[in-house]
């Protein structure tokens, strides 16, 4: 590679992240051609048709993203799944595509479960009758096994999760992602182009070090034309259970998610305060919403979940009108 980012690009460069990266006419002779081509594009038409068939019965898909690690994506994905599945008439699926650090099995109380195969494909692991989960965690022989895979292998598994899991008819498919803007994120957007993604929920914490990465994630969404449902600010203040005084554990030195959302014209879905019970519930595999129904954090989560539901339902009915 002659140079890194910002090297002399050919005039008609399709973009290093585009599906034509490395294979467009303009790529000939570019020093980065080999690399762009190696980062190959999405599924071929036959694969796309297969994915489309498998995902045909999914009504709504929500991606949970962040540029930053450790801000509470998996925690939020689990709360969203439990919140939506509280309605017995809704069928909810939670797909964990964090291949290196799959947290969802533990958070959902499903550690040690294994995936079963049937004639119709892999069976998700069910927490409730109407809430099914899939994660690489279920494929490991021990929870401490490291999955040390490069991008292409991770992409292959993600494709399998979408193609080979017998999800059945689902009202909501929630996809929990690892931090970053890399293989997993590109792949899930490309593979899910076979169905429709309602949008992304982006999770952050108040400090600038997180917002820095989250702005990049917002740009990623724009780049791949993924609608942004809104931003959730986790760890937003702490109320001491003893003296009831509020402290900012992660001070929003640059205005927090609120300011960032204003600047970037995206919706702030809500702020969730720090509650030690959240971490405890995650470690114990219990639903925080059920364990701490009176917590201010639960109230925040419920409001946010409702807003997400409204967004999805509204867009669905808009689309139906257009047809």
């Amino acid at each position, binding site marked *: *590679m002659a140079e890194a980012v910002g090297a002399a690009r050919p005039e008609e460069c399709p973009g290093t992240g585009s599906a034509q990266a490395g294979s467009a006419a303009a790529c000939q002779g570019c020093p980065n051609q080999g690399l762009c081509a190696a980062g190959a594009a999405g599924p071929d038409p036959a694969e796309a048709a297969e994915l489309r068939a498998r995902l045909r019965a999914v009504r709504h898909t929500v991606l949970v993203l962040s540029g930053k690690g*450790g801000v509470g994506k998996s925690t939020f994905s689990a709360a969203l799944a439990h919140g939506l599945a509280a309605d017995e008439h809704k069928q909810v699926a939670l797909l964990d595509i964090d*291949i290196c650090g799959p947290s969802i099995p533990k958070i959902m109380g499903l550690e040690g479960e294994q995936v079963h195969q049937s004639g119709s494909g892999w069976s998700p692991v069910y927490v409730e009758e109407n809430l099914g989960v899939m994660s690489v965690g279920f494929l490991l022989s021990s929870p401490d096994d490291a999955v040390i895979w490069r*991008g292409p292998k991770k992409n292959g598994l993600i494709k399998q999760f979408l193609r080979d899991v017998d999800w059945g008819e689902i009202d909501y498919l929630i996809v929990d992602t690892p931090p*970053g803007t*890399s293989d997993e994120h590109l792949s899930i957007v490309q593979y899910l182009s076979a169905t429709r993604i309602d949008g992304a929920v982006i999770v952050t914490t108040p400090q600038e070090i997180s917002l820095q990465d989250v702005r990049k994630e917002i740009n990623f969404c724009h780049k*791949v034309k993924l609608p942004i449902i809104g931003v959730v600010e986790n760890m937003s203040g702490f109320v001491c259970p003893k003296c009831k005084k509020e402290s900012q554990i992660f001070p929003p030195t640059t205005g927090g998610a609120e300011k960032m959302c204003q600047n970037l014209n995206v919706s702030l879905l809500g702020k969730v305060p720090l509650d030690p019970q959240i971490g405890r519930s995650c470690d114990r595999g219990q639903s925080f919403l059920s364990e701490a129904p009176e917590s201010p954090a639960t109230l925040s989560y419920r409001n946010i979940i409702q807003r997400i539901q409204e967004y999805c339902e509204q867009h669905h009915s808009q689309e139906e009108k257009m047809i």
Partner: protein
Amino acid sequence: LPERSTNLRGVRHILLVLSGKGGVGKSTLSTELALALRHRGHRVGILDVDLCGPSIPHMLRVQDRAVHQCDSGWVPVFVGQDRAIALMSIGFLLEQPDDAVVWRGPKKNALIKQFVTDVAWGDLDFLIVDTPPGTSDEHISTVEALRPYRLLGAILVTTPQ
């Protein structure tokens, strides 16, 4: 084995800062460790191989600086009046600070190899390598590229839960 470049010849020790988990404080620790070592009179470098979420430039307040080329490769950004901390990060190569680096593995691997062999570090007592969360391309490539050199070891960072 990959060829030894001359750029790491003057580096006495290399430390990797790792975690499986994101958001536990790897970059914070890498920065504090570098500052503490500098305080003890050591010459320190930080190599930030978190390509999607580079935090170190902001933490050391050098996010507006740029890197330049010299005969032996890239000149790292020197922090502070005493220039006792040298830093390389993809953050310095972005046109806009909010630009997302949306790269698949092979492209990330190529840049990491360059970061290891093509940065003119000069003489350093410690080179601290800050990594992103996970056990994937960046980690495999970094360890492979550093194998011919004096890899002191890894520090693992976690939180209690």
